[in-house]
């Protein structure tokens, strides 16, 4: 279509390339040509990779999965902001129309001690899973399917839990935090479970275990910069960090 071809852009990319976890890394420059404004950011990278493969070079390694903004796999710091800085948007849902012809784009991996680089833009985010394993569950008896309304949950509490449950665990909060802290992630999980009747029973053990796991896995301490909320593609509020702090204080006296 004519509209498609007439609007194409040429973009200069500066991409972090690192062959392996212990290899030295550096920014390398690539030209992305014929970029359509309707392409997603990842589709643009796919095309750059096709050219690299055709030229016999190693394609840029980056994480991605659903490309619908719900799985939390994509993880690139684009021009200094995790996921590129469009409000409540994952990198896969960021479209090239937000850039101009001739723009330079810097693409880097999540940077934090707790997220070692595996290759190029891919980092190991298992530290987040280890926080989850420490307390992101409720213990319950198995058996017959319980009645849907056996436990009544007031609407405001259900909404609060759902707001916290929006977290897709991508780690943008850690990548944005000047302290490499996972407080927003941890607090979203703690808040979601501690407000619901099924999660209240283990609330004290949970908050202590998850905070300890965060610390043990190399994340820093929260110092309330609130960069996390601003970078979060799901807009998770730092009010959940306040909630975690309240839960933690209650746990201190148990």
């Amino acid at each position, binding site marked *: 279509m004519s509209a498609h071809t007439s609007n194409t852009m040429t973009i200069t990319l*500066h991409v*972090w390339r690192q062959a392996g976890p212990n290899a030295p890394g550096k*920014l390398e420059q690539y030209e992305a040509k014929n970029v359509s404004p309707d392409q997603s950011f990842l589709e643009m990278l796919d095309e750059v990779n096709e050219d690299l493969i055709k030229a016999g070079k190693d394609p840029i390694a980056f994480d991605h999965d659903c490309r619908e903004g719900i799985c939390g796999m994509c993880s690139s*710091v684009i*021009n*200094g*902001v995790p996921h590129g*800085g469009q409000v409540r948007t994952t990198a896969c849902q960021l479209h090239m129309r937000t850039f101009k012809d001739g723009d330079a784009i*810097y693409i*880097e991996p999540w*940077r*934090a*001690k*707790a997220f070692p680089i595996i290759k190029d833009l891919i980092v190991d985010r298992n530290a987040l899973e280890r926080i989850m394993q420490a307390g992101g569950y409720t213990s319950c008896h198995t058996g017959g399917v319980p009645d849907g309304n056996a436990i009544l949950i007031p609407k405001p509490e259900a909404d609060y839990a759902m707001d916290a449950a929006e977290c897709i665990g991508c780690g943008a909060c850690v990548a*944005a*935090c*000047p*302290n*490499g*802290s996972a407080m927003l992630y941890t607090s979203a999980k703690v808040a979601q479970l501690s407000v619901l009747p099924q999660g209240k029973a283990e609330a004290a053990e949970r908050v*202590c275990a998850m*905070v*300890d796991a*965060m*610390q043990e896995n*190399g*994340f*820093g*301490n*929260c*110092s*309330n*910069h*609130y*960069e996390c*909320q*601003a*970078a979060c593609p799901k807009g998770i*509020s*730092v*009010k959940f*960090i*306040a*909630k*975690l*702090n*309240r839960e*933690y*204080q209650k746990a*201190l006296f148990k």
Partner: protein
Amino acid sequence: MRIFNSTVGRKLLMSISGQLLIIFVLIHLAGNSTIYFGWINAYAEHLHSMPPVVWVFRAIMLAIVGTHICYGVMLTLENKAANPTNYAVKRQLKASFASENMIWTGLLLAAFIVYHLLQFTVKVTPDVAWTANQAVVDVFKMVVTSFSNAAIVVVYALAMIMLFLHLSHGIPSFLQTMGWNNDKTIPVYGTAGKVISAFLMLAYISIPATILVGLLKL
């Protein structure tokens, strides 16, 4: 003990010690402002008539300041270690100059407090040397002579700018760490932090400034 080791526990200690220091900043301002009513000598005399109270208070203050500085330095070093690699390009969305430089504004304030104590409590700085052979020090005279020196006033003004920066992040931050926060209060605390810190800065600077311009004299 969990509170002394965990990340959230130590933040709570930072928050509580910080709140106590803010209360001290308010009481100290109230005490200092007696200079405007001509009561500062009476106020100083009253305080010094109760040495046990003064010394217990000083010991408590030392413990609070010590806690705040120790954990502040420890947490900052851990945070630097948790984020060792810098981005080639980094755009800040919400963090401020004040929030990113808490350690430096804090350490500068600590240095200022040492100077302030050496000057008006221990009385060993050159500008207060004349008080050495006085049986009872005329506090009003001491303050007015020292603040007639522009260089000293500049040091105090700079220190109060540090206080402004430190508290403009510190006030909303301690409320968040205590958990007294939600979506409605987050922006309110941000503004309140700036307004209260600006008030404290201006109120503290007003004393040396009033003396320097000659509105308060011997």
